[in-house]
Each structure stands twice: as structure tokens, then as C-alpha cells.
């Protein structure tokens, strides 16, 4: 179910200012790929390029290609709206739709995009998504209650369920646990290690330990003195953390900066 994500020479600008330069990276299916690096190195910018959310920012521009499966997300015929429908995204702060119930939040994507119309099918989809997000047992008796009544950790899992309901091939997560307490974070991490079996998971994280715990592959990014972000090193997490090839990686991992 997961699709391979291949970035080729991806650069992004905010207006005239270059933010990331010529990033080439391959994120494999059924694995968790983590993007780590100090604040401002462009990890989130790169992540948002994958599902074309970057261009939502006024004045933002993206160069290069990103292949998701067989399709070039930046190809000449590509429609950003449809790209986003096939790639799920979870944000740093849980952002359920405040006027909707738990059920309506999960169903929002399929309903608005009219991919599922019959109520019975929708019910099944909502239950399946909430099960996959490890939230079903906690909310199955209160599906019609407002989503804002859930705790932070539950809301974040709800956002994951909402993304899963669109049946994406890739899931992007931008520091998904940084706004959560340790126990809620643990639950989300457990969830991600389950999800990787069915999806390609790419996660931006500030937390090196988190990357070491759950990521199969890790990319270390750094912004140089020109403030432009690049990939410094990319490889299997175990190797990157135990025998980093680049001195800058080693410095970051051992805490000499960042």
C-alpha cells in the first residue's frame, strides 16, 4: 500500500529567499523516514513540498521533481489538489475541525471529495480509520460528540485517523508529538510503528531520540552560513547514529550544537 517517494533536486523559495537547495532523497515504503536537524534547517519546508502544501504560502515557489510511486507530483499535468488527496498530512498542533463531531472529522475528507457516498460505507471507513489510529475504543461510544472535547493526544490521533480516511499511500507528519505529553507521545510513536506496515511514513522531528527509536531511515539536514538547508547525510538510522560519515552529523548527534 505504501508508495516510494523520490525527491530529485528539490529547491524551495519564499519569495526571493532560497530556503532549501537541491535536495535529493528517496523515502521507501513500509518504512519510517525521519528528517532531523536544528531549527530552521528546512525540514518542514521540504516535507511540505512533498504534498504541494508549500505553495499554499503566498510567494512560495518550488523547483525540482518529486515522484510518488509512478507520478511526478510536480509534473506538467499534475493537479496539486489531487496530489494532496493522495498524501496524508498531520501537523504539529492537533487541528481537528472545531465545529464537527469526531465522526464528521474523520469523514470530512471522503465526504467533501465525494469518494465515499453511502452512509454504510462511510460508517465502515470511519471505524476502520479510527481503529488504525488506535482511537476507536476510546471514542466508539461518542462519535457524535464534538472533536474538541478530546484530549491533546486523542485529538492528534483523530487527525491521523482523518488523514487515513483518504486512503493515502504516504503519510507526512510534522513534529506530531512536540505538542503532546510523554504518554500521549508514546502512544503516537507506537501507532506510527504499526502504520509503517501499510504506508510510507515520513516524519519531521526535533527529537533525536524519537528518530532513533522509531525511524528506519534518517536524513540529517543542516542550513549552512547562507541559511539554505541541505541534506548532509542520509542512511539507515542505526548507521547514522552509531557511525555517522559526516563530521557535522556527528557534531549534531553528540550534542555539540543544535
Amino acid at each position, binding site marked *: 500500500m505504501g508508495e516510494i517517494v523520490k525527491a530529485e533536486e528539490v529547491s524551495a523559495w519564499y519569495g526571493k529567499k532560497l530556503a532549501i537547495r537541491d535536495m535529493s532523497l528517496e523515502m521507501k515504503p513500509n518504512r519510517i523516514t525521519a528528517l532531523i536537524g536544528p531549527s530552521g534547517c528546512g525540514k518542514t519546508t521540504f516535507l511540505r513540498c512533498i504534498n504541494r502544501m508549500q505553495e499554499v504560502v503566498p510567494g512560495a515557489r518550488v523547483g525540482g521533481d518529486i515522484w510518488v510511486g509512478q507520478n511526478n507530483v510536480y509534473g506538467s499535468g499534475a493537479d496539486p489538489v*489531487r496530489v*494532496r488527496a493522495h498524501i*496524508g498530512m498531520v501537523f504539529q498542533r492537533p*487541528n481537528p475541525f*472545531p465545529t464537527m463531531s469526531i465522526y464528521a472529522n474523520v469523514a470530512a*475528507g471522503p465526504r467533501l471529495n465525494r469518494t465515499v457516498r453511502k452512509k454504510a460505507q462511510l460508517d465502515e471507513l470511519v471505524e476502520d480509520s479510527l481503529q488504525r489510529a488506535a482511537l476507536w475504543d476510546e471514542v466508539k461510544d461518542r462519535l457524535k460528540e464534538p472533536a474538541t472535547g478530546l484530549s491533546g493526544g486523542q485529538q492528534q490521533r483523530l487527525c491521523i485517523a482523518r*488523514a487515513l480516511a483518504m486512503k493515502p499511500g504516504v503519510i507526512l507528519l510534522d513534529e506530531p508529538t512536540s505538542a503532546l505529553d510523554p504518554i500521549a507521545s508514546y502512544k503516537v510513536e507506537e501507532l506510527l510503528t504499526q502504520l509503517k506496515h501499510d504506508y510510507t511514513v515520513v516524519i519531521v522531528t526535533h527529537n533525536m531520540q524519537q528518530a532513533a527509536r522509531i525511524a528506519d531511515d534518517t536524513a540529517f539536514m543542516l542550513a549552512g552560513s547562507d541559511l539554505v538547508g541541505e541534506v548532509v547525510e542520509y542512511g539507515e538510522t542505526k548507521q547514522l547514529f552509531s557511525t555517522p560519515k559526516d563530521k557535522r552529523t556527528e557534531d549534531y548527534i553528540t550534542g555539540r550544537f543544535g
Partner: protein
Amino acid sequence: MASVPARRDLTYPIRKNVGRLGSLLATLCVVAAIIPLAYMLYYVLRQGGSSLSVSFFTKLPAPAGETGGGFSNAIAGTLLLIPLSSMVGLPIGILSGIYMARSRNVGFARAARFVTDVIAGLPSIVAGVVAYALIVIPFGFSAIAGSVALGLLMFPTVTRATEEAIKLVPAPIREAALALGVPEWKAMFRIILPTAVNGIVTAIMLGIARVAGETAPLYLTILGSPNLPGSPLKPIHALPLQIWNFATGPYDEWHRQAWAGAFVLFAIIVLLNLLARILTYRLGKRVSSS
């Protein structure tokens, strides 16, 4: 740790009393603002209270000079003008509010905002003249002409309030919608607007409250009529117009009824504003950010 010798703060009593004086002055100002309003209400009721009765709301005006009769045609006219002018002012107001909230720095949006601000300050008689030229000259006096004039006065308030209501919806909500593959316009109409709905309803109420009591444009547009409103294509009467006619007329009965009419109009405005306030309060409780 070195100890600092305590110094007596000689200025503290002075500062404390200046503070108290300031609070007192502020309170007095508020009272000063409320007193005229309360007095006005009391005076209007005293002058016209005797004419307020059920028949005031149900009967047409009596023939000149006779007692009795009511303001039913004027009240009905004012109540008719509210939905009619809303049909003109609300679509323009809400849609331009949406546009301005979404395209904040686009040149056209900036120009539109400027024009809206100008029209917001438009003297109401000018709105009447515009409607006169556009509608009355070709088609005659009518409720529709009045609605156009009032709609013109209504929409800047609605535009501004709608823009503010939409800007209050947190950005992550829009991002979440877009990330699901929902197109911009759908995200706006199916997710952002419903989230902002209380603010938009408030915008509508404020717009209506703004025009419900406008008098000047009505002269040039609805003309007045002794009958209850029939077709919107024909002249109608309205409270502000009727109040003016009776207040400046020769009969005491007319004067009393003008006061009563003033009270009814006043009450309508107060109720609309109150409703707007209640809805604004509930807006704060509805959109909760995590």
C-alpha cells in the same frame, strides 16, 4: 546577598489617589454616556406611551385629525425593508468579505477595501440619490428602490465584519482542509465559513441594525403610502418616514403617535443590537483552538 536599605516610597499615596481619580472619571464618563440614552427612552415613552396599544400595531392611520388608528403600514413597511435590503446588501457584503479575507494584499483587494471604507462613510441621502437615479427614474417609487439605497448603506458594515470573522478562524484549520485534498473554494464554503458562522451572523445583524432606522434615503425612494405593503414594485411606508410626517404635522394626536412610533423604532434597533451582542459572545465560545 547584600541587603538593600528600605526606602520609604513617598510618592505611593499620590500615585494611588491619582489612580483612584482616574477610575472615578472613567466611571463618570460611562454614566454620562448612558444617561442621555436612558433619558431619551424615558422621554419617548412618556410622550407617546399613551398611544402604544395593540391597535397601534394593527390599524392603519386614521383620517387626518381623527384620533385612533395606528402605524401598521409603517411598521410593516420597515419590517419588509429589512429582508429586501438584506437581499441587496448581504450577498455583496458577505462575498466581498470572503474575497478580502482571502486575498489580503492583492491590488484589487486593497482598492476594494478603500472603496468600501468610502461607502461606509457615505451620507445616507447620497445613497438615496443614487437609488433615485438608478431605480426611481426608470421604474418609479418602490420598496425595491428603498432596498437598493439601504443595501448600499448596509454592505460596508457586513463586508468588514465578515472579513474579521473569517480572519478569526485559525490558519491550521484551513491547512488541515487543504491537506486533505479539498479545493480552496470548498474549504472556504464547507469548513471555514461554517466555523465563522457566528461572526457572520453578527455581521448580518450589525448591517441590518445600521439601516433599519435610516430616514433620508427613504424620501427619494419609497415615497410613502397609506396602505399596507403590497407589491415591492410599488411605494410603501416605513417607520422613519411616518414619524417625520406625523411629528411635523399640525395635530396633537399625530405628535403622540409619532412618539410612539419613535419608541417602536428605537426598540427594534435595540433588539437587533442586543441580538448581535449575544451572538458575538457565543462566537468566542464556539471556535476553540487546541
